[in-house]
């Protein structure tokens, strides 16, 4: 059978070169025994082991845009599971809490979106549009989201930090949404998934502790 010569774009070496996604690069950078991964600058990015983390820990620092567009919670949870035996159900709990904590760090922290007033699908569309607009602002998109994990025989502790304005939770519990509310469940889910949570750095860091 005769082979066909590729035409146009298909002939271009640029087109044929496999493109690594940020998620794939980050996942590769956390393969054991590498303990740390730091994204330098905007995508396309270079990821390098840079920080001497202890052997019982992981450290990841990425830009806001990468934190939003990559499956970071999946990547970090997989990196932990590659190092530790996680009991039944714990992997789901870690991934769920990390996902919500990272989204909070991105949307409410680095992108500075405090609340979205709209309801229904129009409200979600408006929020999605605002997220994309803020991600297009270089000073916000390049702020960092840092994730650190440490463990001992009894516990695993994650710290997720952003570079936003911080957050003060109302002392009266009014942050809890009504049963049928469309938003505001993130922190409730995080607290239900982790054994303990601790807000630090005036709301810019959230620690999640899980029993092993």
């Amino acid at each position, binding site marked *: 059978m005769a082979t066909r010569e590729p035409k146009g774009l298909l002939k271009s070496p640029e087109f044929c070169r496999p493109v690594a996604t940020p998620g794939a690069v980050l996942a590769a950078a956390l393969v054991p025994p590498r303990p740390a991964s730091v994204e330098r600058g905007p995508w396309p990015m270079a990821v390098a082991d840079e920080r001497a983390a202890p052997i019982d820990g992981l450290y990841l620092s990425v830009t806001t845009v990468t934190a939003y567009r990559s499956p970071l919670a999946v990547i970090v949870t997989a990196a932990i599971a590659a190092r530790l035996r996680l009991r039944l159900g714990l992997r789901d709990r870690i991934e*769920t809490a990390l996902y919500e904590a990272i989204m909070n760090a991105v949307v409410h922290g680095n992108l500075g979106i405090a609340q979205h007033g709209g309801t*229904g699908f129009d409200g979600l569309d408006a929020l999605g549009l605002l997220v994309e607009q803020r991600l297009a602002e270089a000073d916000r998109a390049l702020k960092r989201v840092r994730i650190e994990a440490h463990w001992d025989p009894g516990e695993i502790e994650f710290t997720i930090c952003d570079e936003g304005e911080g957050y003060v939770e109302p002392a009266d519990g009014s942050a809890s949404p009504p049963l049928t509310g469309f*938003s505001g*469940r993130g922190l409730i889910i995080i607290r239900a998934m982790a054994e303990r949570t601790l807000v630090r750095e005036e709301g810019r860091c959230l620690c999640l502790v899980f029993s092993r």
Partner: protein
Amino acid sequence: MKYRFSFDHSEVALSGQLTFPDHTNFRALADKLLKSAGRPLVIDLADLDFIDSAGLGMLLIVRNEAERANRTVALRAPRGQVKKIFELSKFESLFGIEE
């Protein structure tokens, strides 16, 4: 998130993840579901692996829009992480949950 409709569009099966970035796709499928004649409307979650807090909000929006038209939404076969989050959010009091 991926989805597949039944023949009459009154049932939709979701697979993969239902998270905030899926809201545009989910809105399109919700519109189609709400235009169907089915009673109740069914969202099959047997192949849904992960849901976040925004995904819960999206399901509640469909429920409210259906309610306005005197219709109900049933969630079928949630499992794993999805089932756990539903329990946490007391979804059994808001939806019919079919095991």
